[in-house]
């Protein structure tokens, strides 16, 4: 099999995980930067609307590397989707398909459910829940926690920081709670 065909297929966890882990030493060694993505959201606030809030009064220009990094992530998403497209159908565990069907999800063809992540839903109740409310929780929660999956779960745990373990466990508890206890009720709204 040609190499290009191989990398077009979905990458297994044992390839993707170590590559993501290598981001930590790469950033440290090329520029003494600690890995963390949610900080980019804070820099955007500091750059665009600091509004005299002490939390946004810092030299965000010194941290501009973080904005370059996330701009790269957008570009990487574009390149992978357009030039390394998976030739096969998206595979999801049968149990997940069954459970999500019961919740009202019908389209399992893409990486994201078209039933939810459609621009037509933007100004509907669905959009309010999945984009506005969900996004708000991500931004508010990560900053209150002082980091997200990258800053705490990967960078923090790599540096053996127990507060990052507490944060990571809380991320998981929140996710399980939403998936099993809240999402079934939210899906009934539509």
């Amino acid at each position, binding site marked *: 099999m040609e190499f290009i065909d191989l990398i077009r297929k979905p990458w297994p966890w044992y390839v993707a995980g*170590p590559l993501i882990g290598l981001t930590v030493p790469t950033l440290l060694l090329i520029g003494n930067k600690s890995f963390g993505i949610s900080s980019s959201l804070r820099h955007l606030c500091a750059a665009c609307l600091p509004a005299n809030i002490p939390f946004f009064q810092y030299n965000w220009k010194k941290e501009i590397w973080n904005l370059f990094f996330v701009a790269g992530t957008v570009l990487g998403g574009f390149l992978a989707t357009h030039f390394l497209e998976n030739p096969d159908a998206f595979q999801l565990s049968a*149990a997940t398909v069954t459970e999500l069907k019961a919740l009202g999800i019908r389209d399992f063809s893409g990486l994201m459910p078209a039933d939810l992540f459609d621009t037509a839903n933007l100004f509907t109740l669905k959009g309010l829940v999945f984009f506005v409310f969900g996004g708000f929780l991500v931004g508010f929660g990560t900053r209150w926690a002082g980091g997200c999956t990258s800053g705490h779960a990967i960078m923090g745990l790599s540096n053996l920081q127990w507060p990052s373990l507490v944060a990571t466990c809380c991320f998981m508890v929140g996710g399980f709670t939403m998936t099993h206890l809240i999402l079934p009720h939210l899906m009934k709204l539509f």
Partner: protein
Amino acid sequence: MQNTVSPDALVCDAPNDMKKAESGLANLKYLVVGVLFGIVFVKAEIISWFRIQEMFRLQSFHMYGVIGSAVVVGMVSVWLIKRFDIKTLSGERVEFHPKTFNKGQIYGGLLFGLGWAITGACPGPLFAQIGSGYVVVIATLLSAVAGTWVYGYLREKLPH
């Protein structure tokens, strides 16, 4: 509750510790690392809302394998850097930041977890989803920026 600005308010969680100033062009190397990172996110389907649902339903090992192996590789790398005092490309000593515990890691962590299962994305995948053509996620990202701003606004009134 705290009513004064704590000193850590002015410290970034993912700081730049490079002493030497970098030109705008030098920042392109972080863009390149970001590109590779975005490609991994798409190709390993980490940006997928479905994969996150599978993870929280314990119906696939994939995401646990990704995060677990990333942490192991990160830990070994950090250990090696400390053990052999490996310097950065510009010859500086690598800076590490101990995280101090505060209640925000619990409250904020729980809230972020709730949002993670709704949006199917933590902040990194949000950017990669947009690049992949899910334009509606721009709304999620803007809302996440708004959430960050509201946190900054309320910070002194929130328990830490």
